[in-house]
Structures are given as C-alpha cells and as structure tokens.
C-alpha cells in the first residue's frame, strides 16, 4: 500500500512539472507584468525601472526564467508579491484558513444532508419523501451559487438583517463572542456552497444505493433475517459508498474552483479571492503559485480517490 502511494507520487512529479511549464508559458504570454504600473509612473526614472527589471530577471528568455522559478520553488522560495509587498507563501498561508474553514464546513454540511437523504430516498423509491427530495435536489442543482448567494444576502442580510454579508478576518472581540461571530458570518457562504454540493451528491448517493439494492447479495442478506436497517447499512451502503467516496474525492478540486465564486460574493478573504485579485493586478508570482497549488490539489485528490477505492473494495489490490 505505502509502496503504491510512493509510486503514484513519483508518477505525479512529471505531470506537475508539465503543468507548471504550461502555466508559466501561459502567464508569460499574457499581457502585462508586475512592472507595467511602474512603466506608466512618471516618478520612477527609466534607469531605475531597467535596473529593477534586470534584478528580477524579467527580460531574460522564458526558459531561463522558468528554470529560475523552478529552482527557487524547490528551495522553498515562492517569490514575492509586488502588490501586497510580502512573500507569496506568507500571503497564501494567510488566506488559506478562511478557504479551508468555509469549504470544509460546506463539504461536511453537504455530506450530512446527502447521505441520510439519499439513502432514505433509495429505500423508498417513488415515495412522497423520495419525490420531494428529488425535486429539491434538482432545483438546488440547477441554481448557480452566485444566484443563491445574492438571494441569501438579499433575504438574510438586507431584508431581515440577521447575518453580516461581508466576511471579515479581524472580528472585534475575543473568546466565545469571537467564536459565535465566526460561525455567524460563515452561515451564508457555507449554506450556499454546502446546499449546492448536497444537491448533486444526494442524487448520486440515491442512484448508487438503487444500483446496489436490487443485487442478489442484498436478497441473500435479507434471507438471513438481519432486519432492514442492518441490510441497508452493512450490505447496501457499504457497497454504494465505494463510487460515492471516489466521486467526492475527485470532485474536491472542482469544489475549490466553485469556492472562488462564493468567496467573491461574500467577500471572503480566501485563496480564491486572492487568485482573482492577483490576476486583476497582474501579480504574476501569486497567480503562478495559487494555480500551482490548485494543480497539486487535483493530483493529490486523484491519489486519495484511488487509495480510498482500493481500501473500500477488496477486489482491487493496490500494487
């Protein structure tokens, strides 16, 4: 098992290198660079501009710049953000907790809704419960998060004034007050993202359960007199969760992508809004680093999906 993981990680290295080359080239070809602002600033003399450009190697050929970036990266130097005037890794570490907090909570909320609802709906197909769950899932799945996000803000912040609509990292107050405020301001983004995730997940859980429930070995389990609850949990769910878990792991990168939109709506100072603002301000080192982190996440969650699959299904041996 650990050998398998190690080998998979080795295979991941060339693909990550490939991704970094593509990212680097695309960003290099994009118009504008961190110094484009300096160029239009009459207070900075051209000699100083040229000296700075030379210092950061901005006018070197692209392959030299890439090797320079790679070398620095391997030595733990993620570059410097000219806009925020701090190291890129410090910046990312500053923004990451808010993203993980919101995405993590949303994902947990989605699971807490999708698994019980999907499982129960599948045990009573075409019942009233199943039909209501299906309809709600369909609605939830069809409404984009930017729409529900704005709707939530209109209802709960503007009209009812129950919840704050701007997320802030420097909440005044300490102790229990701080905790409550943290929860209060996360409710809307977590609900918007979580419900959206729950909608598609519920449909998936339900259909995975229905695929298993009609199989012969479920009849065998029933014939043992185990009782409905045990048959469903031990025999049906245990098998239906194999594709579900794999899908959830594979979807995680898309969830991070979706969080970018949510972070924009609720002004969450997370890694997604960092990406957007650095793109807008031509902060290339930050854009490069954040996209590269996303790429690593894709590779990581693919690996997690494979390992989970092998762990859940004894027919697959990871060698």
């Amino acid at each position, binding site marked *: 098992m650990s050998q398998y993981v190690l080998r998979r990680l080795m295979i991941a290295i060339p693909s990550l290198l490939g991704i970094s080359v593509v990212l680097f080239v695309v960003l290099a070809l994009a118009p504008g660079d961190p110094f484009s602002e300096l160029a239009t600033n009459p207070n900075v003399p051209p000699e100083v501009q040229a000296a700075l450009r030379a210092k950061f190697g901005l006018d070197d050929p692209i392959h030299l710049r890439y090797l320079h970036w790679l070398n620095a990266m391997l030595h733990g130097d993620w570059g410097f953000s000219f806009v925020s005037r701090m190291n890129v890794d410090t910046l990312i570490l500053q923004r990451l907790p808010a993203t993980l907090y919101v995405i993590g909570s949303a994902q947990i909320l989605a699971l807490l809704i999708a698994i019980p609802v999907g499982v129960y709906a599948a045990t009573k197909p075409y019942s009233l419960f199943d039909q209501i769950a299906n309809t709600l899932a369909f609605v939830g799945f069809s409404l984009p998060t930017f729409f529900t996000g704005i709707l939530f803000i209109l209802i709960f912040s503007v009209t009812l004034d129950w919840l704050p609509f701007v997320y802030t990292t420097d909440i005044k107050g300490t102790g229990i007050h701080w905790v409550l405020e943290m929860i209060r301001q996360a409710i809307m983004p977590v609900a918007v993202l979580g419900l959206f995730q729950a909608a598609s997940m519920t449909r998936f859980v339900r259909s995975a359960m229905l695929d298993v429930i*009609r*199989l*012969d*070995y479920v*009849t*065998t*389990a*029933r*014939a*043992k*007199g*185990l*009782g*409905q609850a045990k048959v469903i949990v*031990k*025999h049906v769910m*245990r*098998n239906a969760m*194999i594709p579900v878990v794999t899908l959830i792991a594979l979807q995680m990168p898309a969830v991070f992508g979706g969080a970018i939109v949510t972070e924009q709506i609720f002004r969450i100072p997370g890694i997604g809004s960092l990406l957007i603002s650095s793109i807008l301000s031509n902060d290339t080192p930050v854009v490069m680093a954040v996209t590269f982190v996303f790429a690593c996440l894709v590779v990581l969650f693919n690996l997690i999906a494979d390992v989970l699959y092998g762990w*859940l*299904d*004894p*027919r697959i041996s990871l060698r």
Partner: protein
Amino acid sequence: MAPLLEIKGLKTHFPTDDGILQAVDGVDISINRGETLCVVGESGCGKTVTAMSILKLIAMPPGRIAAGQIIFEGRDLVPLTSNELDEIRAKEIGFIFQEPMTSLNPVLTVGEQIAESLRRHEAVTRKQALDRTIEMLKLVQIPNAEGRVHNYPHQFSGGMRQRVMIAMALACKPKLIIADEPTTALDVTIQAQILDLLQDMKERFGMAVMLITHAMGVVAETAQRVVVMYAGKVVEEAPVDDLFGNPGHPYTQGLIRSIPRIDLDSEHKTRLEAIGGSVPILINPPVGCRFAPRCKFAMNVCTEKEPLLREIAPGHRMACHLGDTNLGGAA
C-alpha cells in the same frame, strides 16, 4: 402428521404497464419434515417467485401476494410483517440461491457473512460464531477452512462459493432449506459434487429440502416427491417413482422425454424430444388449460374449462382433462 410447510392457493402478482403479471397463480405445494421435494418447470414458470414468496423476499412493491396461505409449522406467514419474518429467515428456513457469483457480498469476508447469521439468531460471542463458521466451512469441505474464513468471495471459485452459500444456509440448522437451482450456474462436474453435498447435509441434519430445478436428471437422483409447474400453476404432483413411471400430464411426459439418455449413442443423444412452442404470457392468460396451445392431445374442452388438480393414484395428482371420467362425453 401435518406437513412442515403448506402453500395453499398462493397467488403472487406483479403490476406492469400492460396489466397484472400473474407470476404465480394459485399454487398448492406441501413439504413434509425431512423430505426432499423437487419443483420443476421451464424458465419463467414461477418457481423462483413461489420460493421467494414464502419468506417475502420478492421485491414488494411492485410484487404482491394477492391470495393464499403459507402455513409453516401451523402458522400462516402471509400476514406477518418483515420484522416478524426475520425470526424465521435463516433460523427456520434457509435459502440457497442460483447464482453463487453474485449472491455473496463482495466487500465482506465469507466468514463474516456466515457468522452474522449466527450472531443474529443465536446467543453467541464473536469468537464462538467464528468457531462455528470454521466448523461449517469444514463440513462443506472447503480446504484450509481456518485460513479461508477470512477470504473475500472473489477469492473463491463458483463451486466453492456455492459451498459457502450452503454453509451459510445451514449455519442456524433450519428445518427447511430452499435451494433455487443451486447448480445451474456451475460446471457439470461441480454440479454433481454440490448435489451430493446437499444430500449429505440433509441426511446429517435431517432437514427438509425444497429443490428447484429444471433438470429432470437432478429430480430423478434427489427427489422423494416432485411438483411440476407450468405457467404459474402446479400441473402435476407425485412421488418420484410414480412420476417417472407413470407421468399423467402431457407436459410432464414431454419433460421426461427430453432427458438426455446416457444409454443412447451420441448420435441419438442430441435428438432430444423438445417440447414445441413456448411458455404463454402470464398477463391475461387464456382461459382453459394453459398448456393447450402446445399440447398434442388438446380437446375442445381444454380451451373452455380450466383443468383442476385431481388425484389419479394415491399421492399422485394432476391438472389435465385427459381420462377425466367426470367430463362424460365432453372429451
């Protein structure tokens, strides 16, 4: 003595888009303690649905027991809820299914699948359940049972899996085993081994066996009594010697003539007398005898009046108008 299990007038229906599919339409079957009863008939005649109805293992809905009684040890099972039936499932009546490849849960070890039945029905610890499971696996002649108990189903061959299924069905020492075509999915050589094993176990534990099959050869070797089904109905019922020696129903006669005979040379062997035509559709079946379209003895009365089961010799009953003196000159 009252029979162990008595099915009376069982009707199991499936609503479909085209109407109600009467998969089982008024079946009477009884099984005595310690007896082997074979149920034979072509594919789709309702053997599995009949067997599954006994413990309500058919999908309900859509399936529905529309009428009838299923009396097990003096108690009607039809009105029981699924929870109440759970006390009888595996404990009193064990099941062996047709497909060993799909009847075991792929993500649980075979030991766990046998042991969970023991733990459900008997006051045993995990350790005791494991020991009993290993004992059962030895009994069904699985080599290296102590090691194999922790293996998953995919690590066994088809024949070995069917042995596991037998061990599972026998674990709680039920009074009745229902085996639904337990050998159909297996190689011919393995088939004989599994049938022998089933016979052995039956003698050792003294339970009754309801063996569903469509192979008359299997019937001749194992059964004491035989029930022949056709299109959701019982058409003949007799002790095994009587059935082979003196088959009454034209359908039974056809089935017996279709047995491959080893005493003929290979040239003749291939020329089995197959019964022409196919099983009628079970939605809105025709009135009268359901076998009439394929029967070479069919008379006018056959398409007008349904033949009912009547005794033609002691313990030998059939549903056919042939030789029915009560019909008078109508025949």
